[in-house]
């Protein structure tokens, strides 16, 4: 933060604006200045990955218009992979560039060009790359092949990058909307699944609502501080003691709510299980990585840059949200019998750890949170890759039973899935453990012992459902684990827990393929036979899995990735 202060507009307030905007001296907003000067210098290199993605999206559209329909099945994913690869390369270039020069603001002071934003550009590029790789086989299997999915994905990533690089609430909102609108469509992308359309609509309505709340918060914050720029807010708040900070606190609270919705923090999480379940599986994985990362980037920018001096006010709020997120996420995940819903709650709970990092409000906490998001991108891409494979055509089997016996059918696939599950549970020698370690360490270093212990206990609760999936993979298809009438099976979680989350009876329980699930009444997951036939692993998915697994181990036993994340906090 100290570094930030030296970059503020103190010098620029001296130049009085020429015409147009009504401003009082000393209260020049960046946006106004941008309007006032006729010539806004555009430093293209500061938004290079963003440009690559958005131009790439246009190129895809043009190509699809020129080429005959369905000329080359693998062309669009290939192009998307190349585009996101280029964007990743551009972020690496930026990383070096920022290292050589100081972090700056660019394009009418609307963009922060620092390592924090570059890290997110890289993260988002990589997530897009995985998203494209995984979507290819899925969309072909579902007969949804087309250019639209990839264009939407590239646009969503553009918005996410804009959020990460935003230097004020206006730009943050622009990015948020660009990303969200693309994501709404992506959720509803599966034309023949009713759930998909329903989920898309839900996401759209709730998402617009939260955007409105965010905007309202931004307006209040503007009212209280007279600026939309984070660094100016910070300077203003550091210099001024507000006699009545009601508007400021209200604005801050609404901004937290708006962004909390995007990262699915409890109690703003209700959309997340429905949407995760509804969206096509590779898109779910993409969303879990990108939307969360972008939302957190926004939260960090707002709270750690804009409202840095208001730490005493927002830290207790984030404390509470973090605790709720950790506990509700991990407890409710236990009750889920749908793999994707379970992963939705799991990712809610994982977001709680990033919130712990945020709550620490230190560069150590930020480094931990960035490391967490970075490693989670790989873990979640891998997990949803496996789910996409086992669910079968038309997403017929999303229940936990679908994964049963995978250890026998595809030992390699099961082993990789086990690795991702253990990483999410936070078992040592995986990236998940080090990620938890760093955020918890940051919390302990700030004296937040209670939060740290709650975080670790939530990990113990969460271990339950991760292990249950692991166990299902290695339990034999024939053996019926729920035979035993005593408490054993119920506690091992193989029996559905009534009362939570209306069970979605699988449609096939009426058909001829129905397994005798009725022996204990309510269609227990464990009684469903595993899907038959061999799980084919397409080449693109195989590559993704291998990369994700290798990264999960690599980041779990060595420190380069953390050093990387740590350098991204230098601007703070």
């Amino acid at each position, binding site marked *: 933060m100290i570094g930030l202060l030296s970059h503020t507009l103190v010098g620029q307030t001296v130049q009085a604006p020429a015409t147009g905007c009504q401003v009082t001296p000393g209260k020049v907003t960046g946006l106004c200045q941008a309007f006032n000067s006729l010539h806004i210098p555009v430093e293209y290199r500061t938004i290079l990955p963003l440009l690559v993605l958005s131009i790439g999206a246009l190129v895809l559209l043009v190509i699809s218009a020129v080429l005959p329909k369905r000329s080359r099945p693998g062309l669009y994913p290939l192009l998307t992979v190349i585009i996101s690869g280029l964007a990743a390369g551009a972020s690496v270039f930026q990383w070096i560039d920022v290292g050589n020069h100081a972090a700056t603001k660019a394009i009418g002071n609307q963009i922060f060009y620092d390592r924090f934003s570059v890290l997110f550009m890289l993260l988002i590029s990589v997530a897009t790359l995985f998203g494209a790789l995984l979507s290819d086989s899925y969309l072909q299997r579902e007969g949804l092949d087309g250019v639209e999915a990839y264009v939407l994905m590239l646009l969503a990533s553009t918005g996410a990058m804009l959020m990460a690089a935003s230097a004020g609430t206006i730009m943050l909102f622009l990015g948020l909307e660009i990303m969200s609108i693309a994501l709404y469509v992506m959720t509803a992308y599966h034309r023949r699944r009713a759930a998909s359309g329903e989920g898309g609509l839900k996401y759209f309505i709730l998402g617009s609502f939260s955007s409105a709340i965010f905007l309202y918060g931004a307006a209040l914050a503007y009212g209280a501080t007279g600026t939309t720029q984070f660094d100016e807010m910070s300077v203003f708040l550091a210099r001024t003691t507000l006699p009545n900070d009601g508007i400021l606190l209200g604005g801050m609270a609404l901004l937290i709510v708006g962004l909390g919705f995007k990262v699915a923090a409890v109690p703003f999480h209700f959309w997340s299980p429905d949407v995760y379940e509804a969206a096509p599986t590779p898109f779910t994985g993409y969303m879990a990585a990108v939307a969360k990362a972008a939302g957190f980037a926004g939260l960090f920018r707002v709270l750690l840059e804009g409202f840095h001096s208001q730490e005493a006010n927002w830290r207790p709020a984030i404390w509470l949200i973090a605790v709720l997120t950790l506990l509700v996420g991990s407890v409710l995940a236990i009750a889920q019998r749908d793999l994707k819903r379970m992963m939705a709650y799991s990712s809610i709970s994982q977001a709680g750890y990033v919130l712990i990092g945020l709550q620490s409000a230190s560069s150590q906490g930020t480094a931990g949170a960035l490391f967490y998001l970075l490693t989670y991108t790989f873990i979640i891409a891998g997990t949803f890759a496996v789910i996409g494979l086992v669910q079968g055509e038309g997403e017929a089997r999303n229940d936990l039973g679908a994964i049963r016996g995978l250890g026998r059918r595809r030992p390699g696939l099961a082993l990789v899935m086990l690795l991702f599950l*253990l990483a999410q549970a936070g*078992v*040592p*020698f995986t990236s998940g*453990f*080090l990620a938890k370690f*760093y955020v*918890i*360490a940051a919390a*302990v*270093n700030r004296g937040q*012992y209670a939060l*740290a*212990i709650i975080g*670790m*206990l939530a*990990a*113990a*609760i969460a*271990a*339950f459902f991760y*292990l*249950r999936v692991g*166990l299902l993979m*290695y339990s034999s298809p024939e053996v019926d*684990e729920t035979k*035993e009438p*005593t*408490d*054993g*099976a119920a*506690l*091992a*979680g*193989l029996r559905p827990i009534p009362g939570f989350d209306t069970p979605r009876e699988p449609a096939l329980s009426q058909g001829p393929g129905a397994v005798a699930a009725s022996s204990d009444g309510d269609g227990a997951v464990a009684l469903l036979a595993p899907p038959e036939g061999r799980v084919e692993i397409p080449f693109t998915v195989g590559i993704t899995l291998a990369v994700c697994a290798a990264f999960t181990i690599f980041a779990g036993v*060595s*420190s380069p990735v*953390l*050093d990387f994340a*740590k350098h991204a906090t230098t601007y703070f």
Partner: protein
Amino acid sequence: MSTLSFPILTVAIFLPLLGAAVVVLLPQGRASLVRPVGLAFAVAELAVAGTIVAEFKAHDAGFQFVSQHAWLGQFGIGWKVGVDGISLFLVAMTAVLFPVAMYGPKLVGDAKSFMGWMLLLEAALIGTFLAMDLFLFFVLFEVTLVPGYFLIAGWGGFRRNYAAMKFFIYTFAGSAFLFVGILALVFLVAPLNGGRETFDLITLARYASHLPTSDQELIFAAMAVAFAVKMPVVPFHTWMPDAYTEAPTAGSMILAGLLFKLGTYGILRFGVYLLPKAAIDLAPVLLTLGAVGIVYGCIVAAVQKDLKRLVAYGSVADVGFIVLGVFAFTSQGISGSVFEMVNHGLTTGALFFLVGMLLDRRGTLRISELGGIQKSAPILAGVFIVVVMAAVGLPGLNGFVGEFLVLVGTFITHRWWAVVGTSGVILSAVYLLWAYQRVFQGRATGANEHVIDMTWREKAAIAPLIVGIVFLGVYPKPLLDRVTPAVSNLVAHVQYADPGFHIPSKGVGTVYAVPADQNVNGGQQTPTGVQTAAVTPGTGGTP
């Protein structure tokens, strides 16, 4: 300090890991190779451990064979391993028990993943005993849960999923406190250490006693919760009978024989050594839990209907003895505790092995359905009674030496707790001999008439354990010679941290009394101002 030119301890950790990888990567068609290859690695590990014991300098109190490498630079996390008298025999026992458990019990199911998990567990366990870096220790401590979980869940009894899950969640939740405790210690010590965070055991021990007493007590309490769950002492023990009973025979041997030593070892190595002042302040709580555990474990064991559960509850009582000895803070008490840890590994390992044999033969372990087996299986019965006698504490067998030392050590400082603890000696005889009587004596009926006696494989597998039981009972000196210096050093360290704490009568048990001028605390002066050449953990650094 090391006489060996290569890092033997690192090899000891990675050899089983390599074995696990080799076993898992064996081609599907070579299923018959899995067991021999796995066993070969376990035996090779035994040879490595044997080398460590042979090369270990007996009268040296410090860490030996220390090897240190930077690992995760961020918080001064390093790969630092070393062995001293306290951990030496735990490592040795791990290396002995694993080949026995892998070779002896009948194995049903997938041999490949079984061997893989077992070797992984061995690597993690050895590493945990050798770790001199708190981060490394915690990481390996946690990693042991994964193979433990899969061993129970994959090859266990009827309620295996329940037991495995309970085992994992309980200990994982306990570790939450350990984790936060370790981090708090590291960050609170950092300002004293010139602002550098470190997880190094020796450095932390040097500064931890300068922390405010309340901080020390809270950190110690956090650690104690985790280790108490792992041991397990009484209010935290409920996962244990399930886990031990449902685990496969080999799993029970390892779980009971070794895994739970992590708790007692952890509290001794990390709790008492790092935070001696807090350990003294909180000792009455733990002593009470230990004494209650002895009585409770024995009584509950006596009324069990299942033989395996009976042995499992017996372990609760044994843990009570170990805790009693540790928190007596006398040289005899702690030596006795370390001795008891080794004993318990041998006897409980052997007991679970024997119980597993009965289960294989009879298909049930309900005591009411067993009886008179000694007629058809005399060797089995004979071996069983030897092990039972060792567990009861018959002089001449190893159990006696450990219990005697613990009780003497406790009596010096905490008389009444020792009195309660002594009742455990009687009570353990009650439940074990009564069980023996009901299972092996009397008239055999039904299937009990035709129980096959021990096979050659089983005899060969259990022989090392029996030899150990008798040898340590008759001639404990080699072990005590190596344990006592390290223990004396620890006791002196505790006394130095709290000069008010005084061992009343040093005269009792003079053989193992604390050397008066024992140097403590990494070359710092002792309270009396005597400065001697430091043969302490502080200088036991890299050669």
